[in-house]
């Protein structure tokens, strides 16, 4: 085992990482002000086609407002945003057929059946009805399709929302807190669906409170605080830059010792235990995105 001791991190400048592929979402100095309130305050980023992009932050940080602007439900008060090359402020009619959204709240027609919900949106998007059954199969709701949505569990509703959002085969899929309020099993199923979509080439723009979810799914994440992006990078780099750098050592006495990887003295202690054959296990406590967020925003999510 070799230990590389690095200097402690310093507050690094925010340098947007250029996405791997051609950008499908390009946002430049985008702003939304409500009077004196700066809900979104001049953010710049781009999302590559096929990328899973995480947008993380506290409630009120500006995540949902950004999604509202990118999906044409709010007009920017400054800057610009383009989706698939079309300006969201002036060419929303061209953008709408290319995008879709899984919202925070399960906004389904509760008196309609699951199938009728999808049929309605299939009609709105002008897609063949065969797509409805295909999607019901994808989200494992074929059996429940003839039932009214009000009889569905939260997980079933969320899966139906995903099916609805895929009805038009969107090039960019926005997911606003998709697993909020779901039990762990349903949340896992949903994350699997998102991962499958991404593998299928759909660009995913995900906002979430759950850092482990972002870590699991996202190619890159942006941290938003008070309407501004405070960090944007691939999760691993952010964790390395902002996370804790410790390891837990289990000694032959069943005693656990935590060592600081950045402390030379701790390195010497570990080397000593190893020389003496006292080390049973070593677990590196690499930082989490939660740690990154606390480091950036000064408080946990």
């Amino acid at each position, binding site marked *: 085992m070799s230990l590389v001791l690095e200097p402690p991190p310093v507050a690094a400048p925010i340098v947007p990482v250029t996405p791997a592929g051609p950008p499908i979402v390009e946002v430049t100095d985008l702003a939304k002000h409500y009077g004196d309130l700066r809900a979104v305050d001049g953010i710049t980023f781009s999302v590559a086609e096929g990328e899973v992009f995480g947008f993380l932050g506290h409630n009120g940080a500006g995540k949902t407002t950004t999604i509202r602007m990118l*999906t*044409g*439900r*709010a*007009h920017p008060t400054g800057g610009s945003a383009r989706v698939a090359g079309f300006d969201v402020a002036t060419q929303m*009619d061209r953008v*709408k*057929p290319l*995008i*879709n*959204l899984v*919202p925070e*709240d399960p*906004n*389904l*027609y*509760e*008196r*309609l059946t699951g199938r009728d919900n999808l049929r*309605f*949106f299939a*009609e*709105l*998007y*002008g897609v063949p009805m065969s797509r409805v059954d295909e999607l019901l199969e994808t989200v494992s709701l074929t059996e429940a399709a003839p039932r009214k949505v009000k009889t569905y569990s939260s997980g079933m509703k969320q899966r139906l929302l995903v099916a*609805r959002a895929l009805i*038009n085969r969107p090039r960019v899929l926005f997911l606003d807190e998709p697993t909020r309020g779901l039990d762990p099993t349903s949340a896992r199923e949903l994350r699997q669906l998102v991962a499958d979509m991404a593998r299928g080439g759909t660009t995913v723009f995900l906002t979430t409170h759950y850092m482990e979810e972002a870590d699991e799914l996202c190619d890159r994440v942006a941290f938003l605080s008070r309407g501004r992006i405070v960090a944007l990078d691939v999760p691993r780099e952010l964790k390395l830059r902002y996370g804790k750098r410790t390891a837990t050592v289990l000694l032959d006495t069943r005693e656990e010792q935590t060592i600081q990887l950045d402390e030379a003295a701790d390195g010497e202690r570990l080397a000593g235990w190893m020389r003496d054959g006292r080390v049973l296990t070593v677990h590196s406590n690499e930082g989490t995105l939660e740690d990154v967020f606390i480091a950036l925003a000064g408080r946990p999510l």
Partner: protein
Amino acid sequence: MHLSRILAIFRKDLFDAIRDARVLMAIIAPLGVGILYSFMFNNTPTTPAATVAYAATDQTVLIGTVRDTVGKTVTLTFNSVPDAAAVRQAVLDKKADIGLVVPAGFDAAVRAGQTPALTVMLPESASYGGDYVAATLEPALRQIAGQGPVATIQTQTVSAASATDVTSISILNRIGLRSYFVIAAVVMLVAMVAMLALPIILAEETEKKTLDAVGLIASYTDVVIGKSLVGITYIAISLGLLLGVTRLLPANLPLFVGGVFVFSVALIGFGLLIGGLFRSANQLNTWGGLLLIPVIAPAFIVGLDAPRIVTAAIWLLPSSQATRVIINAVSGQAVFPSLWSAFLVIAGWVVVAYLLLLWRLSRREA
């Protein structure tokens, strides 16, 4: 604007909305009220009636002369009985409102100026019909005697209203009480669908955020047009049922359809505007009734002799003008002259409603 999206919204709402009990009640209630009015009221004007029991030894022209003199003011029934005792008994038994005993040779005696005695029997509590017949005996007898009227009486009704004003009596006489109340129910039906059922549908979509999902692909203009079509369809179906059950066939069908359509369009505009103002469908269901009062009340006031200030105030409201148009359409008569002003007032409300709605939508899209 996208036709297939408008039709998708229309189809979905048409069948989904009536599964909501609040919406269903808003449609059914005025329909029920209209049918109830139709059974409660009658179009035939109620004229007083009187039964006359008479005993005459000879043929007499008196009965026919009295009938002619009374005319249509009182509906008369004459019962011939054998003698004076039978006349008295009929009056006592309340089988007659008035009794006449005509002596032998009465007609000839009258014509000869011999002033024969005519016995008139009235009950202790005389009826309007009986009294009226008693009062007409004198002119009837003069006529038999060959005496013309001593003067020609010209009666004029004096009121502050101008000659072209339409009074409630003339309205009710021309269309009948039943038709009038069914017309008021038509106005109520349009108002409740447009300003209660439709706003509930929209408020629920806003409350449940389903409108956001629709707005991801459809424009708000598509939504407004789709829901307006739903309102028009609900009104058309309900009106068809109401007119069918009450058998009230408008004499001027194009005018009826035109009037109801323009009125519906105006109220639907306001309904959708209201639907966007309330936070929840339940809140709207609770308070929306208050907003209906100034819309529905004028329909019932148009046919009454209300104070001039009230009449002037409701003149400005679309429902009072729509009532005028519908009354003319149902009666097939120009009960209210100058319908152009009625259409002008309703059209003004259409413009106001949709300008406000567009303003509201532009704010929502911003």
